[in-house]
């Protein structure tokens, strides 16, 4: 194909957008909506997994040491613990700190502590954060074999809650993204099909005067690509607005934010580059591919 032909076909593609503006607008809307749906689903998924990750990192296994463990044993146990796999961090928590914290926490029961006087019945402990909480039981049984340990308190219930929540959310979000992809595929393919269908006569006539399939297809392809590109722009804008709005609402919910962790929210700034690229390229690509595929049927008729 010569350059003049390519230029002509490109111009045709651009012109067709305006000539078939009703159809182009339909494709534009449908593509835009699909991109927004898929985009927001993915963003939601990112945020939710980041939140779960954040909440997970707050879990704590507490290793209580025997009463009156001396410094040497302390160091030995700390060394062994640090060398265990699956340990994210480890803090020493002396019995004095523990006592003060307990007193604070149980301020309703002041009487109780008054009766104790200066006596501190608590023990030293290590507070340990587990890396992969699904491997927690294994790590704990390794800890139990260490000498000089009185007791291990692990947040079994909390961990099982988190793993289950994650399972469910993974299911739900994966299903959501899949559903959105299917939904988008269905509506995009239907819209482009209808758009081409309404021009089947034109396509037939072009074939009668000797146009090759490629010659007929290229303008559709370009038309779809441009429409898709603009749908991508629109989708980007809408996603941005929606995302910003949701983030603003969240920011006013201090307690909630505190629990899920402020840092676990993905800000728009962090992702705007890959997002912009995916939207624009994705839009153009889907638009072009959709048109190209839908012409097939009427081109071979």
């Amino acid at each position, binding site marked *: 194909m*010569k350059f003049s032909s390519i230029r002509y076909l490109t111009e045709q593609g651009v012109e067709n957008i305006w000539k078939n503006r009703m159809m182009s607008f339909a494709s534009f809307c449908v593509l835009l909506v699909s991109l927004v749906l898929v985009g927001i689903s993915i963003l939601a998924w990112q945020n939710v997994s980041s939140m779960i990750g954040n909440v997970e990192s707050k879990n704590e296994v507490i290793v209580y040491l025997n009463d009156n463990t001396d410094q040497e044993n302390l160091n030995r146990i700390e060394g062994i613990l640090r060398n265990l796999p699956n340990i994210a961090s480890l803090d020493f928590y002396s019995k004095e700190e523990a006592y003060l914290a307990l007193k604070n926490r149980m301020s309703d029961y002041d009487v109780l502590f008054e009766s104790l006087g200066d006596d501190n019945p608590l023990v030293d402990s290590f507070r340990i954060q587990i890396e992969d909480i699904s491997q927690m039981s294994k790590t704990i049984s390794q800890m139990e074999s260490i000498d000089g340990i009185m007791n291990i308190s692990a947040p079994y219930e909390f961990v099982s809650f988190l793993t289950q929540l994650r399972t469910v959310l993974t299911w739900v979000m994966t299903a959501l993204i899949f559903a959105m992809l299917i939904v988008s595929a269905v509506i995009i393919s239907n819209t482009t099909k209808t758009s081409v269908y309404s021009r089947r006569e034109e396509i037939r006539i072009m074939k009668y005067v000797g146009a090759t399939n490629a010659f007929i297809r290229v303008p559709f392809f370009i038309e779809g690509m441009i429409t898709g590109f603009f749908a991508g722009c629109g989708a980007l804008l809408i996603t941005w607005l929606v995302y910003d709005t949701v983030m603003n609402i969240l920011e006013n919910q201090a307690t909630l934010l505190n629990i899920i962790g402020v840092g676990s929210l993905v800000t728009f700034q962090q992702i705007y580059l890959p997002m912009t690229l995916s939207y624009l390229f994705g839009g153009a690509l889907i638009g072009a591919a959709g048109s190209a595929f839908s012409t097939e049927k009427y081109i071979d008729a």
Partner: protein
Amino acid sequence: MVELKDVSVKYSNGVDALDHVSLKINDGDFAFVVGASGAGKSTLIKLLLKEIDATSGKIIVNGYQLNTLKKKEIPALRRTIGIVFQDFRLISSMTVYDNIAFVLRVTDAPVPHIKKRVPYVMNLVGLQEKAKSYPDELSGGEMQRVAIARALVNDPQLLIADEPTGNIDPELSYEIVELLKSINMQGTTVMMVTHEHELVRRFGGRIINITAGQIAFDEIMEGTDNEI
């Protein structure tokens, strides 16, 4: 060159549109095809374009064996044929100019050639002023003339015209046939379907009569035009 050997066409609804037709039109011939409504004239043309396939028999058009022609090669075949359809078949989303130029564009013709050739053929059929009109904005006769211009534009080896004067007044009809004749003089094979006996009588030449799917008559007759 067009050659049909024992060709039959039976449409899916059972209509026998052509019934063992054999026919040969040599390069450079001018043939009128006449026959009653529904006789099978347009069916014959659809065959030559490979718009439909023959139920049986062999067809050769401009050296292409249509029975064995692959889908991919159909555009090449069609580019050797200029055709005026009975129902015009203009692309309604393109202007008159683009409808005609399109035929050149599909063959990758150079832009300067297009820019010279298209106005030239529009002039031949008297439509120079309608270049920017869309088919919807034309009268019946004007559409027909666009269809004729489109068929002429790429200097085809074979020109097929299905009732090209059905919507045109007698004076213009004569001009159109004379145009086709002069194109024929330059070497293009022309096949013109018409039901206007007056035209046939006047111009004469080879006359093929199709009746009920069969060739009832295929002879060369003297035209009255030559006498006047």
